[in-house]
């Protein structure tokens, strides 16, 4: 054991010197299967197969926004491309997300007289991210946020509402929403166009190994399992896939990986629900780190404050709590009957506040009336039907249903209505939406339950989306990453609806740069 540790240590410090021998000694071994796990685990380099089962220029892992954007750009640039997806359906978390895309300085804002700019978005991101964001990455996303939304319209025919949404931590409303408020309305047009270009997502392909050459340090391919059935370990057939130009990681975050996320943030135990699909696990991040990728900010894991205990996962509650109650209503603590924070504070501040209350046996609810604007209005019947929200005709009913002190509740509502009238939230300085009107009966109420939502950390990249080597800080040749698999863009807090643009922007960059690589021979 101790020998093994020594080898790992030296190989990280002197990558080329030590690992070159491993490969040189094993090039004659046909295929990967001849080499034992223990042997391979000695270094971040891998034995390359003498003959690959499949070969492409660009090999993309993951089929969410980032993977699809990368695939589109690489394909358009003339590269042969394959998109690998371990699950049985394409789209990852992007196809189940809320359909919001922050776009700074967009035409809807201009039409409504809202002043905004990429600089302001970058400032918002970095302020709320506690300055842990890598400025050049955050600025890239901010600058490209509106252009990339326009790109989804121009290239794929994506459609959006004419109403802007606002998530916590944003200075102004700047978020485009798809018509039914689902990211699927961007993913599906992308999937369809890629399909017309002859590129269909390969589902049920699980990546076991990233194959990095010990001699030149380049990532040259993957060892995968085709026909994999999530979550059956060892299912499917082992195959090798050559990446002549590059491998692009676009596998998403690890919100559903309870052991790994609890290791990074011990508060986020199995008792917490998660908004992600079940495949959002950490095995490929672990594998990227094994081959030498630099980890960054893995402990910063976002908990969404707007979840509901009356449904599983992401559901519909976040739409009501955010687009209804946070923009046009109030959030209160049921024990005090008072607001406790700006409902448009960033997700971490709000989730932490609610979780702290819960630790003291207190609960929070979100309240809005029929004046809420935007697509969320169309979700109200479903929200009611599923019991995620309930409607009340009197404040007495609300007080009784959630055990809220009635006088305090009435005062809170009166105060909030006064703040709207005077155009200033005296208590919490919340941005008051231009379309907001005094809260009046009847009202809808949702119980709030914070849920694990997004992992800000991941592998470290530069502005070219190249993954950097932990031992040298230099880009690992042939190795790119984009989307939630990447860390450093958002720092401590990702602002709501900035994930979509982040995935698309760096997906495009990764795809373009990967396609421009010179193939290895």
């Amino acid at each position, binding site marked *: 054991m101790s020998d093994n540790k020594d080898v790992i240590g030296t190989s990280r410090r002197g990558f080329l010197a030590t690992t070159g021998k491993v490969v040189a000694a094993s090039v004659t071994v046909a295929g990967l299967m001849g080499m034992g796990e223990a042997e391979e685990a000695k270094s971040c380099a891998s034995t390359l197969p003498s003959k690959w089962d499949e070969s492409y220029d660009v090999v993309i892992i993951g089929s969410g926004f980032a993977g699809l954007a990368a695939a589109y750009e690489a394909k358009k640039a003339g590269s042969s491309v394959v998109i690998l997806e371990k699950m049985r*359906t394409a789209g990852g978390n992007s*196809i189940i997300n809320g359909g919001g895309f922050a776009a700074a300085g967009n035409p809807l804002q201009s039409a409504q007289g809202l002043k905004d700019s990429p600089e302001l978005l970058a400032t918002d991101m970095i302020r709320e991210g506690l300055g842990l964001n890598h400025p050049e990455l955050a600025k890239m996303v901010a600058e490209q946020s509106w252009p990339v939304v326009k790109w989804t319209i121009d290239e794929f025919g994506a459609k959006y509402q004419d109403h802007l949404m606002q998530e916590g931590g944003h200075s102004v409303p700047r978020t485009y929403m798809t018509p039914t408020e689902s990211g699927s309305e961007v993913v599906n047009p992308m999937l369809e166009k890629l399909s017309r270009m002859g590129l269909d997502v390969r589902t049920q392909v699980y990546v076991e190994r990233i194959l990095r050459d010990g001699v030149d340090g380049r990532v040259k391919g993957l060892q995968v399992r085709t026909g994999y059935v999530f979550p059956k370990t060892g299912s499917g057939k082992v195959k090798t896939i050559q990446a002549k130009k590059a491998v692009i990681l676009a596998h998403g975050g690890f919100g559903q990986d309870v052991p790994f996320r609890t290791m990074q943030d011990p508060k986020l135990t199995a008792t917490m629900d998660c908004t992600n699909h079940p495949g959002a696990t950490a095995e490929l991040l672990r594998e990227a780190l094994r081959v030498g990728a630099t980890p960054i900010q893995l402990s910063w894991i976002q908990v969404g404050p707007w979840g509901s205990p009356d449904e599983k996962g992401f559901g519909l509650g976040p739409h009501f709590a955010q687009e209804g109650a946070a923009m046009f209503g109030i959030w209160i603590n049921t024990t005090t009957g008072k607001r406790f924070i700006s409902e448009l504070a960033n997700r971490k501040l709000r989730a932490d506040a609610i979780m702290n209350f819960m630790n003291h046996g207190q609960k929070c609810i979100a309240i809005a009336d029929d004046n809420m604007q935007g697509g969320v209005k169309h979700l109200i019947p479903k929200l009611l039907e599923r019991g995620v929200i309930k409607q009340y005709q009197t404040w007495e009913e609300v007080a009784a249903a959630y055990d809220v002190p009635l006088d305090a509740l009435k005062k809170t509502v009166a105060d909030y209505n006064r703040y709207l009238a005077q155009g200033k939230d005296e208590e919490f300085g919340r941005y008051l939406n231009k379309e907001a009107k005094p809260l009046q009966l009847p009202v809808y109420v949702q119980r709030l339950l914070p849920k694990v939502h997004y992992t800000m950390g991941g592998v470290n990249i530069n502005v070219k989306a190249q993954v950097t080597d932990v031992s040298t800080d230099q880009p690992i040749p042939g190795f790119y990453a984009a989307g939630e698999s990447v860390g450093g863009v958002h720092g401590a807090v990702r602002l709501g609806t900035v994930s979509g643009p982040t995935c698309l922007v760096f997906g495009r960059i990764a795809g373009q740069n990967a396609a421009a690589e010179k193939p290895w021979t």
Partner: protein
Amino acid sequence: MFACFFLLLTAGLFAQEPIRLPAAKPSDCAACHVGKSPLPKDHVATSDLTMKDCVGCHAKGSPTALAGKLPLSHVHQLSGATCAQCHEDPKNPEPVAKAKCMGCHDMEKVAATTAGVKPTNPHTSPHYGKKSDCNLCHHQHERSENYCSQCHKFDFRLP
């Protein structure tokens, strides 16, 4: 000695496991279920029965409904679909693509049939529209599953 014991043991196991005989008559349970009938002891003889006959007693939605009990491959067989209608080579069957299912089932009709299912229509979704692969939920040779339930609390009962 050990090898003999091993052979006996595996032979014993195989006797319990059904075998797949593409040529077997669908209503001849014993042809594939060698040695152990999957039916209750007092079940009427199944020879010459079709799916229509089965549903005559096991009405849809009734306590004795077959949804979730009878594998869909059997429903297909008893309805007259043969192995070869789905698999190019029944002796070496490959997974079946949705297009094959759509050769007999019309997606629009399927979605219309379940339009009233609560809390939501399982055959059209905000994520995948009507494009979901049938096999996400409706397996033929193993128990079907509620794929939506990995993210939702939708209590669908499905064949």
